[in-house]
């Protein structure tokens, strides 16, 4: 019987389209995604005293530090937003971005054992990372929302409006950017390990090139252009805008960041797809 005459369930072909994503298969493996998420969350906090409380403790302590250092020592402005709210938004968004990026960048390295032995749609792993990190973010955001509500009761009611409906959009934007960039880095790190080591250092430097501890309105001139070239700037400004109605909302900055996000996302997916097939032989 000829090859073409048989109806195959699986076709393995050396000449496969590098752009085919097989999302149907990923959906078939949704139980695996769910279990990966559970594993990542459970495994992180087993045998720790505070357990999931760490999710909350980290941003609280960081916010306190930021208030002391940047508000009281350096006297950086906060666009008239109460410092607690200003810094807590900055820190939870930045930690969401950086830990999502870092986890995605480690996808191949952290899973090389299992990728080398069993086949399952590899895209399940980055998707599970998105869910896991998002859950962590939502817990932190919930705490932020409580503090926010307290301020509303105290009479800061002027900053809430329908703009908050933009929040989910901004969060998806951030997820796509961090994941796309992370997948690009993960594909490169299968060949060049030092990139993974440089990443942590680079991210901690990069935080200062992003309006995390200061609002964009505080900088001007060339420095402002430079900071606007950082695609995450727009995400942070938009997030603060939806929460507080403050922030610089320059259309060209937002468009630029959106284009960057799409480039990262598609670049990341293409590289990931190409790499998932070849990396077993490289790493």
């Amino acid at each position, binding site marked *: 019987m000829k090859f073409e005459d048989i109806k*195959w369930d699986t076709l393995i072909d050396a000449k496969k389209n590098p752009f085919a994503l097989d999302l149907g298969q990923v959906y078939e493996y949704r139980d*695996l995604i769910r279990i990966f998420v559970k594993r990542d969350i459970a495994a992180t906090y087993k045998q720790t005293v505070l357990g999931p409380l760490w999710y909350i403790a980290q941003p609280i302590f960081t916010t306190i530090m930021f208030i002391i250092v940047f508000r009281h020592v350096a006297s950086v402005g906060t666009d008239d937003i109460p410092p607690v709210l200003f810094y807590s938004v900055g820190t939870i968004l930045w930690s969401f971005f950086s830990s999502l990026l870092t986890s995605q960048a480690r996808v191949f390295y952290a899973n090389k054992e*299992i990728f080398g032995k069993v086949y399952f749609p590899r895209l399940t792993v980055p998707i599970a990372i998105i869910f896991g990190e998002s859950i962590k973010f939502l817990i932190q955001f919930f705490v932020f929302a409580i503090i926010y509500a307290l301020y509303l009761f105290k009479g800061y009611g002027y900053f809430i409006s329908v703009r908050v409906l933009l929040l989910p959009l901004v969060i998806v934007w951030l997820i796509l950017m961090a994941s796309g960039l992370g997948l690009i880095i993960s594909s490169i790190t299968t060949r060049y390990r030092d990139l993974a080591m440089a990443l942590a250092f680079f991210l901690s430097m990069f935080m200062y090139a992003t309006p995390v501890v200061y609002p964009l309105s505080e900088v001007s001139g060339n420095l402002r252009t430079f900071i606007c070239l950082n695609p995450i700037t727009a995400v942070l400004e938009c997030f603060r805008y939806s929460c507080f109605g403050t922030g610089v909302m320059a259309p060209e900055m937002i468009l630029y960041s959106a284009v960057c996000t799409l480039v990262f996302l598609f670049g990341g997916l293409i590289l990931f797809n190409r790499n998932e097939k070849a990396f077993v032989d*490289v790493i």
Partner: protein
Amino acid sequence: MNDIVIKAENIGKYYRLGQINTGMFYSDARSWISRRLGIEDKTLKIGESVGDKKGVWALDDIDFEIEQGERVGIIGKNGAGKSTLLKIISRVTVPTKGRIGIKGDVASLLEVGTGFHPEMTGRENIYLNGSILGMKRAEINEKIDEIIAFSEINEYIDTPVKRYSSGMYVRLAFAVAANLDSDILIADEVLAVGDAEFQKRALGKMNDLSKGQGRTVLFVSHRMNAVKSLCNTGILLDKGKIVLRDEIDKCINRYQSGLYDAKTSTDLSHYNNEFFDLDDFRLVDGNGNELTQPVENGGGAFVRIELDMKKVHHAFTTGYAIYNADGTLMYWSYLTDDYDENNNVSEGRNILTGEIPAHFLNEGEYFIYFSASLHYIQWIVNPEEDSPCLKLHIQGGLSDSPFWPARRPGVCAPVLNWTVEK
């Protein structure tokens, strides 16, 4: 004719040897750009060109078909391409060229316990591992009792697996894999783990899955006994090509005699060393004539070793190791087995003759490997590694009794003394 469930066409897998890149982004980028622009690549050493980077075809133009319910043993020497083939079929790696069509689900047991997380309990790990292997949650719910029962770790199932002994770990992992409901099962040396008892159970389970439930099985192992008992057909690979696609017995025999042929083509002087030159190693009959025909089992086969001793060491001993066609070691025999000062080698020419015991071996082919060592000090020629080989074919003469003319059940067929009292 049964349905074809796997069909491979022109499958090739190319591995680049040595360093794949320079490991430095800058050099690689430069090398890539110069290749694209067609100018001289400055990262290569002088005299090197891109085409010089050597590689190897681990699989080279392989074509085969596997039918529904076939139990295929894939055999061959190390590096013949067996594992690469399984990895391609189980989709862990991609072929460099060619294509494969597969009908039905594939479950691969390339390594049991893949993805187990030490912090999670046995039960959680069953779900994790099962999902990785492609099971749905509902399927696992249905089978979990069966899996736990098979693993025999009932009371520890809710304990994190980091507290398990390695035996428990392997049992749990195998239990998950063995309970997969897949049409095609791929296994690679999975049975080589665990204790003997576990191996027996695992092999039994594999037998049940393949013969009992009619699943298609692809199995790679170096243990010919396991392959023989599990598989009915075979693929014999050598240097990335299929040498034989036939019944499993034929493949195993061809494999064994292939090993033998490779040995006989080696010149004996290859084994010369500081202690002796090996001048002769052959099978002879009682009159000292070389054996070329199959012999009866009533004695009359001897191993003749001719050594030119250059250096005598008090611990020196020599002899042979004999394996049956399945690769099972029958026994070792040494010149110094009966300790006798006078019965040892001395400097110069020595001709040693060792008998093959009468009425002990079963009918079949045997492979005899030369062995020499300083006892308990070092190997000189290790029969398990690189050593000259002889082939002995025993046919008939299993005993003096007319009732046992042919091969008897069992590994050996000794004729032993019995007494009857009345």
